[in-house]
């Protein structure tokens, strides 16, 4: 009897729990897939009884496992193998891998090799940042966050800035990428990197051409900043949006800095500042394991980086949470200024306007243009360097390889490679911390905060579509792939489901940008 009674109690409890679960699960919104990401992405939003957002998951549904199949490969092949992590920013992985080989073989590249590498790298940063400004994130501002969706794309940008400018952007991108092809063999997966140097020298006749393109790139940077100033910064509504709470998180910030604490994309120490902007840590990349940990969640294939000494305390902001941020906003927060004159002038204005540190995620767009100008100026400095055409491009390794760590600032943030090898230079361990991972916790928080700010009482407005996207797009989620979204559209489907998983409402945005209810 008591068994039966127990069973009855259990059943009652189970029914109660199921009922509670059912009401809890009464609304689930899936955005699948999101786009303008390198790779696949998905957002699952769960509403509570009141129809407000209880939890939103920003998911990466993909894994390839490079760390594992790197084992057994030759160290010198790693810059080319790891570039296949991302064909949009292959130059970043190629360069991080190459610098890891320098450290692995304890060989210092020649001065000319360093200059060639840094020049290639800054060319890459210019084209990559430009793509984001004109094709990905920019339309939200240049055309407007509340503009009709049909115009909120690159064609809308061209409409605002003119067809000639659109052609200029395409041509600029091509010319910059042609230089990477010249020096790196290919632009999608270049091959120039070797420990202690680069594979190919710069010919004198090429240098003249590089100088011309560099001059154009600097003008292009100024021009891009003018567009940002005229269209975005002079518009009070946009500035208010940038400053709004829905797009604000106070976290730690990280970036690679030179000895003057100016950002350097190619080399330097990692500097971390607190949410208050004070220096928290400054370390050579070989010490990264003391500072960076990767947390695992069961709902995404991506790992979530955090500051080890602060610890992982969940998806929270503030000085007590190890969550940190990388990429343009973070780099400028971690910096005391910029190393080139024009970029520094722009940086001072940015800081004077927004204060420091800047916690507004959407300010990434502004910071990105300042970095674009810096990269163009740095490209020009290096293109004008008389040492660039020296034949002294390699220093042959003589040490027995064992372990190496390398770092660059990818467009999307700090990128770390770490290899161990046997005596023959065969990989026995590889650890890769990519920019997206460093930003993954904060990005997930931003998406959730935007969803919470936008969805109330179960009402899913059309406006959610763009604004939720803006929350992750500001981080430049690997960019270039999506650059040619020609006839526009941020393709989205939002489905509202009941507890059985049946779709009760679907909102979709078509290729013409119009939003339909089905």
């Amino acid at each position, binding site marked *: 009897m008591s068994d039966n009674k127990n069973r009855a109690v259990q059943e009652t409890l189970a029914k109660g729990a199921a009922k509670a679960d059912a009401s809890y*699960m009464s609304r*689930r919104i899936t955005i699948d*897939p999101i*786009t*303008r990401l*390198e790779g*696949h992405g998905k957002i*699952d939003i769960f509403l509570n009884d009141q129809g407000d957002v*209880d*939890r939103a998951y920003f*998911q990466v*549904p*993909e*894994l*390839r*496992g490079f760390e*594992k*199949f790197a084992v*057994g*490969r030759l160290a010198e*092949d790693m810059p080319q*193998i790891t570039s*296949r992590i*991302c*064909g*949009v920013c*292959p130059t970043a992985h190629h360069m991080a891998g190459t610098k890891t080989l320098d450290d692995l073989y304890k060989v210092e590249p020649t001065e000319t090799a360093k200059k060639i590498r840094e020049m290639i790298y800054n060319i890459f940063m210019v084209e990559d940042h430009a793509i984001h400004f004109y094709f990905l994130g920019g339309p939200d501002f240049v055309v407007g966050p509340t503009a009709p969706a049909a115009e909120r794309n690159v064609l809308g940008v061209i409409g605002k800035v003119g067809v000639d400018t659109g052609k200029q952007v*395409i041509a600029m*991108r091509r010319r910059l*990428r042609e230089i990477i092809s010249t020096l*790196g*063999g*290919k632009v*999608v*997966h270049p*091959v*120039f990197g070797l420990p202690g140097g680069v*594979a190919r020298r710069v010919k004198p006749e090429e240098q003249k051409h590089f100088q011309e393109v560099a001059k154009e790139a600097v003008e292009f940077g100024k021009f891009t900043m003018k567009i940002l100033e005229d269209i975005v910064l002079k518009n009070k509504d946009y500035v208010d949006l940038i400053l709004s709470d829905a797009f604000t998180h106070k976290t730690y910030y990280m970036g690679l800095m030179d000895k003057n604490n100016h950002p350097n994309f190619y080399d330097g120490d990692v500097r971390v500042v607190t949410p208050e902007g004070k220096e928290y840590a400054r370390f050579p990349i070989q010490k*990264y*394991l003391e500072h960076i*940990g*990767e*947390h*695992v*969640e069961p*709902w995404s*294939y991506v*790992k979530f980086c955090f500051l080890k000494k602060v610890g992982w305390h969940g998806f929270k902001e503030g000085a007590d949470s190890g969550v940190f941020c990388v990429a343009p906003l973070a780099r400028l927060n971690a910096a005391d200024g910029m190393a080139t004159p024009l970029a520094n002038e722009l940086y001072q204005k940015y800081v004077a306007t927004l204060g420091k540190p800047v916690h507004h995620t959407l300010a990434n767009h502004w910071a990105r243009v300042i970095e674009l100008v810096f990269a163009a100026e740095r490209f020009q400095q290096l293109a004008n360097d008389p040492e660039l055409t020296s034949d002294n491009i390699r220093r042959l*390794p003589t040490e027995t390889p064992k372990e190496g760590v390398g770092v660059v600032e990818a467009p999307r943030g700090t990128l770390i490679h770490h290899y161990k090898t046997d005596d023959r230079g065969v990989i026995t361990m590889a*650890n890769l911390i990519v920019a997206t991972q460093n930003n993954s916790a904060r990005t997930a928080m931003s998406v959730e905060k935007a969803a919470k700010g936008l969805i109330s009482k179960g009402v899913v407005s059309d406006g959610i579509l763009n604004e939720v996207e803006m929350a992750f797009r500001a981080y430049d989620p690997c960019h*270039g*792939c999506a*650059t*040619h*979204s*020609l*006839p526009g*559209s941020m393709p989205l*489907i939002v489905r509202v489901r009941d507890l059985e998983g049946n779709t009760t409402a679907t909102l979709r945005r*078509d290729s013409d940008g119009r939003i339909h209810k089905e």
Partner: protein
Amino acid sequence: MTTNGKPKVAFYWCASCGGCEEAVVDLAESILDVVAAVDIIFWPVALDFKTKDVEAMADGSILVSFINGAVRNSEQEEMVHMLRRKSQLVIAYGACSHLGGIPGLANLWDKKTIFQEVYHEGVSTVNPDGTEPQPELDDQGRRVTLPRFFDTVRALDQVIDVDYYMPGCAPTPKLTMQAIQTLLSGNLPPKGAVLSPDTALCKECPRIDTKPEDLAITEFKRPHEILIDEEKCLLAQGIPCMGPATRGGCEALCIKGNMPCSGCFGPPGRVRDYGGKILSALASIVGSRDDAEIIKILDSIPDPIGTFYRYSLPVSMLRRKKMEAVASEKK
């Protein structure tokens, strides 16, 4: 769905890096001609991502789907089956789709060993609870899902029927444009064709004149070990270059960057096992008849799989490391 009468074209990516998307974007101004000639009805990375819309289309209503990336998980498998039904023609676009590609090197391991490395043993991973991503998760009543991760990476034609192959990591804009023009012309090549010249890369290499008639290599050099002459055949310098066994069409891009061909275009026609073909090409130029010396010379290539099968392990006769062998290597 538009009904403007233009041929419908789809682009999709599986386990890939986005470089194949960049290759399309690198058509630069020409992409405007493409858009004028066809109706791109699916390109998740750039245009409206509506799996549902493609599902709603009649079977065979897409003229051609360009699919890049290897098939690594359940979502990719489902997508390529669906696209196959909807498409008259399917092009395996790029090395991963064509041959399995660099992500195919994961076939030296399996799901368990990869997860073990990525989520447990990675030196910066902090995972005291032993968490792993779950295909289905009940998180306090919230059901969250992820695609299933397979043990084995497959090239596209190991999953669906493929009409043509576009080689390269990444394919060049020039070959891409030619392929689009050929397909639109209606003058189709025979099924199964690889859309790039069926000749060895050496034929279009700018250094061909410096390639000796009879090479005799007594030691293979690795690119970081020597100063590489910018004019001379790389094989003649002792560097393993895949040119003799690799299909042309890229116009020797890596060699113009003063580095060897690593074989991303795969083999010329009728080669069953590309890695085996390279191995035999290189073995034939080993300059020794003494067994011990030959072994020593071949030892100067410490990673045969990564050297010869870098892009083609999933479609090779090896295909993958035996699951039992992977299991027995586990700690």
